[in-house]
């Protein structure tokens, strides 16, 4: 298994400023989406009055998860908007009445460690806590099994992104309190916060409060990409390898921002309605971290903060530079799993013939052979032993390729080919 490589960080661009909050949006668009399910059920109709936290949709296949309104107001339509994976999805459009009236969820406890495990899982579910590092995977599922270790993923390994760092800067204490409570509730005895060794500042933020929580330790991990990938992170910190899920080994990994969402859920029994997004890139007037209401259109946010600079073509990317998706418009809705919007120059670099240097193989953290997969994209028999389905789409193969071949796309295609059979 490859161990990741050092990539350019470019983080300082968005780090220079304090967190700012953007204007409250006139209209929010809440996508009826969770994780891989792109068409969740809609529970409201045009004209309905909703409050902040009203369940307006629900995922009800094998996973049960509500979808909440992020403002109070009136449903004015079901519209298609751009989701961060580049697809247009159905969204509930809510006209904001600027009253911030919230659903009153009773039963929040002062001491957040005093919930039972069942209550804990129910709360994560009803507050729709999902992975905020990008996955949008329902968090409660991770807590269903017996656990012994929690790793808080604060590695934030993608270049440019500093949203998690900003989160820690503002809420280190609450995050630690939540981790401590999670450990108490789930009978977990090992709590580890994983920080990149280059990010001393983040460690210092935690150290201010760490004394109160003797069971939680900080581990500094190598400054490589994709160290934030669960499998690599667990291997790095604990030396453990697993087949399917980390919970098979009693391990749970949560992103820091997700932990903060858990904190909110436990403390107030409320879903989050805003998130920090790193809005950065050389083509933006003011790269910074912005606290944005879920469902806001990115277009308005960018306009509010000075818009673009320059006149040549831009690339508008939802997510980080490695795994993010390039979009052909900025009319993107902000969702819980959108940690970054990146706007950079559109420099076209023509690809050269593959010289079969093997770097894409050497670098692949999923231990597969991108260039050989490219040779056999449509050959199902060969794909069976090449395992393109193990690809985590980290993009390192395309990153490292000296011929600048977008080799990840070939692996994606092969994945589709596998799925067709």
């Amino acid at each position, binding site marked *: 298994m490859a161990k990741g490589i050092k990539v350019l960080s470019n983080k300082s661009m968005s780090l220079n400023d304090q967190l700012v909050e953007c204007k409250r949006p006139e209209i929010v668009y809440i996508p009826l989406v969770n994780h891989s399910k792109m068409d969740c059920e809609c529970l409201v109709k045009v004209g309905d009055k909703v409050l902040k936290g009203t369940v307006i949709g629900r995922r009800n296949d094998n996973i049960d998860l509500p979808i909440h309104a992020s403002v109070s107001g009136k449903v004015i339509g079901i519209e298609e908007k751009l989701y961060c994976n580049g697809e247009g999805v159905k969204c509930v459009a809510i006209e904001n009445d600027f009253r911030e009236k919230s659903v009153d969820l009773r039963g929040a406890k002062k001491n957040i460690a005093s919930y039972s495990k069942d209550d804990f899982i129910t709360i994560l579910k009803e507050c729709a806590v999902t992975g905020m590092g990008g996955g949008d995977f329902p968090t409660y599922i991770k807590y269903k099994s017996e656990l012994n270790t929690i790793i808080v993923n604060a590695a934030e390994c993608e270049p440019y992104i500093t949203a998690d760092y900003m989160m820690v800067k503002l809420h280190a204490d609450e995050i630690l309190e939540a981790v401590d409570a999670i450990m108490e509730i789930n009978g977990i005895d090992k709590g580890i916060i994983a920080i990149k060794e280059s990010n001393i500042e983040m460690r210092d933020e935690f150290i201010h409060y760490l004394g109160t929580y003797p069971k939680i330790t900080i581990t500094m991990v190598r400054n490589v990409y994709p160290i934030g990938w669960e499998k690599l992170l667990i291997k790095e910190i604990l030396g453990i390898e697993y087949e399917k899920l980390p919970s098979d080994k009693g391990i749970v990994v949560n992103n820091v921002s997700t932990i903060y969402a858990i904190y909110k859920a436990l403390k107030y029994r409320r879903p989050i309605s805003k998130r920090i997004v790193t809005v950065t890139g050389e083509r933006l007037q003011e790269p910074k971290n912005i606290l944005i209401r879920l469902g806001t259109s990115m277009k308005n946010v960018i306009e509010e903060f000075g818009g673009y600079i320059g006149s040549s073509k831009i690339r508008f990317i939802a997510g980080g530079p490695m795994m993010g998706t390039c979009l052909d418009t900025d009319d993107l809705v902000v969702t819980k799993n959108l940690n970054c919007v990146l706007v950079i120059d559109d420099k076209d670099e023509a690809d050269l013939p593959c010289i079969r240097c*093997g770097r894409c193989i050497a670098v692949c953290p999923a231990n597969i*052979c991108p260039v050989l997969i490219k040779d056999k994209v449509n050959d199902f028999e060969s794909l069976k032993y090449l395992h393109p389905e193990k690809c985590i789409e980290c993009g390192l193969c395309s990153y490292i390729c000296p*011929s600048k071949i977008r080799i990840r796309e070939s692996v994606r295609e092969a994945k589709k080919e596998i799925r067709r059979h």
Partner: protein
Amino acid sequence: MEFGFDNGPHLKDKDHTSKIMSRLLMALTPIIIFAVYKNGLLPYLEGYTNLYGMLKPLIIILLGVLTSITVEIIYFRFILNKKDNLIEEVKRSYALFPGLFVALTLPINTPLWLVVLGSLIATLIGKLLFGGLGHNIFNPALVGCLFVIASYGALIGARGGYLNPMEIDTIAGVTPLTNLSNINYVGTWSNIVKPFGSLRDFLLGFIPGSLGETSKILILLSFIYLAVTKVIKWVVPVCYVSVVFVMTFIIGTMNNIDIFYPLFHILSGGLLFGAVFMATDPITSPTTRIGQIIFGLGLGLLTVIFRFLSPYPEGVLTSILTMNMLVVIIDKIGAKAKFKKGYLNISLIVLLICIITFSIYIGYNLKSNTNKVDDRFNIIEIREENNKVIYEVTQKGFKGLIKANITIANDKIIDVDITSQSETYWMEMENQNYINRLINKQDDLENVDVVSGATISSNALKAMVENVLADYEVRK
């Protein structure tokens, strides 16, 4: 605002294929300079050749490069009908390399038209007809080189083969490996290495060989540079050379030859050059790390087999072309081994068994041949006279044959009577009483110092004495 699209990732590593190729060229530059110096400038300065002879290595290299570039331009323009960006296309195809490598793997005495032909074959058949850069199965340069050596080897040999103008006059005969095969692979320091100087000369490159291959020290330095800057798959040469070392070590040890033997094998011929520059050609070598290990091990095994068991003593070219053919299969093993360790273990065990078996087989078979002697030595007659054995023999010296009657009594040489010779520096040897020194130290010939100024003649005499003793030993 206009939005561009790209699948990403939107950060790219700074390294670039064109930079890789420039680094390769950079690593080759000292080797090219040395080739020009050793084969052209040096003989010229020492007065062994004329101006043309001085420029010949440079001409060969330039001709090789120009030919392959021209071929690609013509191919792209007229066969593929690319009109715009023609120069760009040819640049992107790194057209100069096949021709350059062909030139560096050819002997200095290759006729110029043959250089052009070899480079043409390399570029056209070895590369373009397979579909161009990235699609060829065989190392293009080796395809061209194989063609030249296989079809016109005799012609080149007749013109002096691998010997530069200076070596023709100072070294009797051949390349170290041909010499080794002539004496049937077994011998001592004095008939394996000594005729060409010392291992230091091997290392520095002042021995006969193709243009690029002789300076091992430069090749090693290039290897380090290329490995550190990630131009080549360093695993391949490391495995390759290790296997050759281990196998020739076993073979040598079985035949009581010192540790210099494996070193000789590594430093002779095109092994290092081939291992560092040819076997690592990215396009024709495996992409997986495990594949590269198997590839390297296989190369070593094949090279030793070819060197000892085939009539062609070089072995590197043929091994690389053979292994090129297997790359697809090897990569398949490499890919499978990522998830099933069994594939790796089985291939390694099979290779290891082959390596050991062949070493022992070759080592054992050489033993029974030990008695053959070098072809510069000839026995005219053996007489027995009252308990004495008299050998009438000839040995090729610096100039022509040295004839002698050598008398043995009680298993010892008691007299060496030179009956005719035409050596240039005979007086020096007589002055130093060289023959008597040989007779006195006949049990320890290796440590008899040669007469300075008459190295080749001294070595010839020494070899003669050695050969007689060896023959006598057998007959007894």
